[in-house]
């Protein structure tokens, strides 16, 4: 069958089922937008993990006057405790793992606290004596934090050794769950779009059964009978997935780069180059799904 003739058949089919075609476009559009956003979120999580894990420090919190009895039976840390911690950090056992460390006294901690919680009511009640003196340690390899935990936990005068990554992990778990939820919603919608495509194609074939009968009688090959229907589904899904791709790119450009990146200047966000990686995959997935769905639908409808 000639290309021009086939394309005009496809066009007629699309026009005839306009409402169904629009619904295919919308469903593939929305589901693939979800898929695209979720995969970008995954990329973003990966990037943030790299970025923050490298900067994550291990905090050695010293006892204060208000520390719980169980951790600090002897009350606030003395100068000897500080000296002991410092000495251990510089000892030959620990020094090779440590990139750098610094000491934060209660006044500095108070200043940081006031800055962090500016405008929050808690900033007015807290006093410098209530905040821990802290040794902040940067390791060469953040994965080796257990070494520090082991050396300092139980040392009298040390309240707690805390790896900042444990806070980060909570955030990443939340983000990860969000992206998984988005992916599950998207896959449900993809299932419905596949079913919608096969229903539409069957409807389209039914409304053209007269033509199909004649095509079979005059000896049109099975392939040339089926191809216009498959193309019909593919064209509709292609429009939907291109729309989804554009939406993802617009989201990156204006929401992520335009809004998020400006309000959180020290975080690296996914950029258009990541989008350019995701969008072709989205479009390919949309087209492939539509081709398979409509191919199967028309094959079952048209037993020659």
């Amino acid at each position, binding site marked *: 069958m000639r290309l021009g003739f086939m394309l005009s058949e496809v066009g007629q089919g699309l026009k005839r089922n306009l409402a169904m075609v629009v619904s295919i476009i919308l469903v593939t559009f929305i589901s693939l937008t979800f898929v695209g956003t979720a995969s970008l979120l995954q990329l973003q999580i990966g990037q943030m993990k790299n970025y923050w894990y490298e900067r994550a420090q291990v905090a050695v919190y010293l006892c204060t006057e208000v520390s719980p009895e169980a951790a600090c039976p002897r009350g606030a840390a003395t100068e000897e405790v500080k000296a002991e911690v410092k000495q251990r950090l510089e000892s030959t056992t620990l020094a090779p793992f440590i990139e750098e460390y610094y000491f934060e006294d209660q006044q500095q901690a108070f200043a940081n606290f006031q800055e962090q919680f500016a405008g929050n009511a808690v900033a007015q009640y807290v006093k410098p004596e209530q905040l821990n003196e802290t040794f902040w340690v940067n390791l060469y390899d953040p994965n080796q934090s257990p070494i520090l935990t082991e050396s300092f936990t139980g040392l009298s005068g040390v309240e707690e050794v805390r790896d900042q990554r444990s806070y980060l992990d909570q955030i990443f778990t939340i983000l990860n769950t969000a992206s998984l939820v988005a992916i599950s919603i998207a896959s449900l919608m993809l299932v419905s779009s596949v079913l919608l495509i096969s229903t539409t194609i069957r409807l389209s074939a039914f409304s053209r059964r007269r033509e199909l009968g004649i095509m079979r*009688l005059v000896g*049109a090959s099975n392939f040339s*009978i089926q191809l216009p229907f498959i193309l019909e589904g593919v064209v509709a899904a292609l429009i939907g997935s291109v729309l989804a791709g554009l939406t993802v790119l617009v989201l990156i450009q204006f929401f992520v780069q335009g809004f998020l990146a400006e309000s959180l200047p020290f975080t690296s966000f996914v950029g258009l180059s990541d989008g350019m990686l995701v969008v072709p995959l989205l479009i390919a997935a949309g087209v492939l799904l539509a081709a398979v769905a409509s191919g199967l639908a028309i094959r079952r409808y048209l037993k*020659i």
Partner: protein
Amino acid sequence: MISLQKVTKKYKGTPRPALDQVSLEIDKGEFVFLVGSSGSGKSSLMRLMLREDVPNSGSVHVLGENLVGLPARRVPFFRRKLGVVFQDFRLLPNKTVSENVAFSLQVIGKSEGFIQQAVPDVLGMVGLGEKADRLPNELSGGEQQRVALARAIVNKPAILLADEPTGNLDPTTSEGIMSLLNSINLAGTTVVMATHDFSIVDRMKKRVVELSHGQVVRDQVSGGYGVKGQA
């Protein structure tokens, strides 16, 4: 040209076979009437010759192809060598006369140049040259059947199968269709026509194959519709 050997066709749920050990030979250039009452097996026979169905046993050879063993993907190419017309014309209502004829050539991939030449030629031959741009519902029944005939022969088939082509037409119109079928036959195409119309069969004096209860009960050269002597 067409050869059936001991063909039996049963349909599910019916105890009696639609065709029972039917053997039939049709040669090149013949004009054959298939007659018989409803349910005698005429339509089943036509369906087998068109490879819309395969028999339960026996062999069907048409145009050198063994239709029983023909793989499904080769069926379309076999059908391109055949022309078919039906009682209900089977035209596309939203296409004009010439588009209807052109459609059958377009779907088998003929070039636009060939189509532009062949379609007016064949429409002229069936006497519809003037009405090429009309829609089917603007034509009389006889004219619609002429369009269907034009579509069936535009690809110059070796065999034309006609399943009650005059069934919906009045006698005068039928006569026009029959003379057209006759001239197609004279041009060398083998014509097989299933019909109930005894006046046509009696007048044409062609070979008659009568089916009854799925069996060939009469095969007569230049016969009439009824049993010999009663016609």
